[in-house]
């Protein structure tokens, strides 16, 4: 099936089975290897991308469903050399260690921060970040510095929903 989708702002077309996982389409057909496979079951979140702007597990979306839709991967977060605030803060605050979960977390957190879903002035901001990122498993960091980084990014972006 001929699938046309907008990936990181550019229209891409591929000839694949409509049952091919979006994760494999990105990694194998488009050679965008930033999105990772950690489990194949939708448990770990390492494969998180934005589908029409919202975070989803790309291992649980098939190519046919993406025809005509928009996908943002970790490769599409930065604006040229300018990192997204979430990326900058993850680096600055030690929120990335082995890095395999980092693209999924960066993508998910960027969407949350840009949509204003977690602002530090909300009383339960840290708990909210933890709830919204709970679909991304990290085994290295113990989560602490990631929460710090996401809130620091939210402060900078100051998105209003």
């Amino acid at each position, binding site marked *: 099936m001929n699938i046309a989708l907008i990936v990181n702002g550019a229209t891409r077309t591929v000839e694949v089975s*409509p049952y091919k996982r979006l994760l494999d389409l990105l990694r194998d057909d488009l050679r965008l290897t930033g999105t990772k496979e950690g489990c194949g079951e939708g448990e770990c979140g390492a494969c998180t991308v934005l589908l029409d702007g919202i975070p989803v*597990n790309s291992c649980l*979306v098939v190519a*046919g469903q993406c*025809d005509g839709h928009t996908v943002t991967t970790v490769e599409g977060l930065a604006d040229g050399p300018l990192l997204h605030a979430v990326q900058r803060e993850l680096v600055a605050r030690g929120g990335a260690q082995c890095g395999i979960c980092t693209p999924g977390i960066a993508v998910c957190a960027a969407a949350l921060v840009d949509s204003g879903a977690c602002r530090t002035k909300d009383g339960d901001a840290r708990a909210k970040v933890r709830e919204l990122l*709970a679909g991304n498993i990290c085994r290295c960091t113990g989560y602490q510095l990631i929460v710090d980084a996401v809130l620091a990014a939210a402060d900078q972006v100051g998105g209003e929903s």
Partner: protein
Amino acid sequence: MTDYVRPRDDRDAIALRAAHPDYLVLAGGTDLLVSAHHKAEPIGILDLAGRFAGISADATTVRIGAGTTYRALAEARAIATLIPILAEAAREIGALQIQNRATIAGNLATSSPVGDGLPVLLALDATIHLASVRGERTVPYHAFCTGYRKTALGADELITAITIPRPAPGAYLAWRKVGTRRAQSISKVMAATCLEVRDGRIASARFGVGAVADRPIRAYAAEAAAVGQVPDAATGAAVAAALRASIKPIDDLRSTARYRLEIAGNLLARFVENAGQR
């Protein structure tokens, strides 16, 4: 190669279902696509993502389109105001990425005994709306599950909507899920209730309980033990005992029969006591 059809609109979806009975009916895919790369390719995919959308409410009823995602349920004002326990349950399904895709109809059709959100629909006395090229019909949710992962959904039918009667003003609504961890977890035991207290006594009670049988259940024996009683600790204990006598949960990878039995009873007892303290 796998065929792929995407309906133009909801009516087209119903027609395509009849035309392609052996196609995989796919909406959110959060259950059907687990380990998809290891599964045999289906003959075809009928993609319902985005179909049967919409949440609305009138004076008596809340109507939820079958294709509504759990995230939409978690965030909709109408749900938060009128039937907040459905929003609470929605936020405990998997995690954000799953909620963004998983649909209420998918959950209903898969009909897992640990399907989150399903006990809430029992407690709220939901009605399932089905359609096929042969016409439309409704099934009360308490009659929809017919066995382990079996439902009343016909081979050529699609779920189009769920309607829920607006709970009486002052009704006590509660929900609790006990999962294997605090997020992204399978339920070990869960319960929901819609309880009405009038003149200091329980006038009506519905308890939906999950993960204690081969399907989500209405705890009729527990409801009978509640109606007419004062909502206090003693009634709570009686309700818990009635529930425990009426279910036979199992040991499995995630929990034990003993734990499920004890905690399921505790959840209902707590609902009863809390209803009395408002």
